[in-house]
């Protein structure tokens, strides 16, 4: 029990004391997750809207594929992305291996199905009267799209939060694609794995608490927005 308690105090010391390594990992985590979430939301919400709203041929099969992608293991995504962006891979020339941009690519593949599937579910559950209401009040096609998205904003928020949770806590992609390079691609989760491997439980727990604190702050901010 002592080492858990020590971990808690170590977390406070690392954060308040401005430990450079800890803050480097925090910064790497925030950069990678922000990048991947931005791409996932920009691509995922419109795709989720189309999947939930438009009755196109092959819709059910597409839905099945997206739902299956929800269960993709992070190490498998890491493996595939590694294969593509390594020097021998088709995208090797882009120089993404062992970079934060490489991690962003992998985390986007992880988060995108979550955003698409949950956005589609939110749109599917949208009241069938909404379309009638918006058209009858004079909405154009574009206004119909944006007003419908605004009506399901809480569902979209939940989709974003769920995806963010997966991205923040994944370790497989960051480890395989990022390489866990100190001061460069070491994220909080890969740092925890490393510190635990070295027997530095206190530091591992401290970093875990930092991760939880970030997640808590994100949720508090979104909860505030929701109330508005």
């Amino acid at each position, binding site marked *: 029990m002592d080492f858990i308690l020590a971990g808690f105090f170590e977390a406070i010391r690392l954060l308040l004391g401005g430990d450079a390594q800890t803050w480097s990992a925090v910064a790497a985590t925030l950069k990678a997750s922000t990048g991947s979430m931005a791409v996932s939301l920009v691509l995922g919400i419109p795709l989720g809207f189309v999947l939930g709203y438009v009755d196109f041929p092959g819709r059910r099969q597409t839905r099945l594929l997206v739902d299956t992608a929800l269960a993709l293991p992070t190490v498998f995504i890491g493996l595939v992305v590694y294969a593509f962006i390594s020097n021998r891979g088709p995208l090797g020339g882009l120089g993404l291996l062992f970079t934060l941009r490489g991690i962003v690519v992998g985390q986007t593949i992880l988060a995108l199905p979550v955003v698409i599937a949950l956005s589609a579910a939110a749109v599917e559950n949208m*009241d069938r*009267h*909404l*379309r*009638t*209401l918006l*058209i*009858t*009040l*004079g*909405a*154009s*096609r574009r*206004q119909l799209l944006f*007003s419908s998205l605004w*009506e399901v904003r809480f569902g979209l928020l939940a989709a974003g939060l769920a995806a963010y949770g997966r991205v923040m806590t994944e370790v497989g992609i960051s480890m395989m694609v990022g390489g866990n390079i100190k001061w460069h691609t070491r994220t909080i989760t890969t740092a925890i794995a490393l510190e635990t491997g070295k027997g530095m439980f206190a530091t591992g727990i401290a970093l875990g608490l930092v991760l939880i604190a970030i997640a808590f702050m994100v949720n508090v901010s979104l909860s505030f927005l929701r109330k508005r």
Partner: protein
Amino acid sequence: MRSPIYQIDHLVHRYHGQPVLDIDQLLIQPATIMGLAGPNGSGKSTLLKLMAFIMRPDEGQIYFDGVPALPFGSVVRFQVTLLTQEPYLMKRSVFNNIAYGLRVRGQGEDTAGRIHEALEMVGLDPERFSGRQWSELSGGEAQRVALAARLVLKPRVLLLDEPTASVDAVSSELIRTASLRARQEWGTTLVIASHDREWLYDVCDEVIQLFKGRMTGTGRTNMIFGPWQEGGDGGFHKRLGDGRRLIVPAPPHAEAIAFIDPAAFRILDSPADPVAEHEACIDGTITRLSLERHSGRLYADVRAGSMTLVVCVEAAHVAAMTLHRGWPVRLAYRPERVQWH
């Protein structure tokens, strides 16, 4: 004569391949009130949605102001609005719900004043209701806010799909009054679908009967569902309870629906009067007398067993004032005047 605001030609619409609406032609003049009557599934709501340009018909054409119109078309987008049966509002405040239509039209001037006026029209105190959220309203209040969101637009056409079916009596009366004010004040054309036939016949310039997606006529009619039973004498009838029978000619099939024109019935001066040859008769009690506003005709609702028949009252009876609610009457009619669908 002015050109019609709506001209509907050879309109066919299907759900899952099954035709639900088949209208050869329908004309609606501007600033009139048209009623749509008919049982559930007769196509009233589908017709209103097509007239609101929410969906496009499978076949045929709807002309608006003489121009072929389609959903999102610039000709109709800001002209026509529809109020549906279920009170549905967006997840925002009353003010923002009513302001939405003004915003999409780019009409930002004096929004607060116009919303204030619209809320007063539907009998809601603007001070109390403007700031409320959609979730803080009762069903009747929500439907009145929904109507205010249409009235604030001062539409050229207001389509009402059973607007009072889900609300209490007070809200119902306020919705009816506010709808009629739209025509009085702005010359709005109203098309109203309702099961409340007394309301329809009271306010409408014309009432169209719809049945299984087809127009079966205008004005009042008696629509009588089976089952039809064969009598011992080879004739057919429907049992109405209390020993009463409605005698009809042979129906084309077991599920056929009989239509009888209210003018086909003749109220006998005295129940003891003999009926003419080939006439059948049925006894009942007058439950209501109503005046059709635009035609000036008087109609009587006659309760016969489990059914209420609408009967056109002849001028002689009106002059003699021999009919009152609760009076027993005998109706005579010729069974061959029954029409089948």
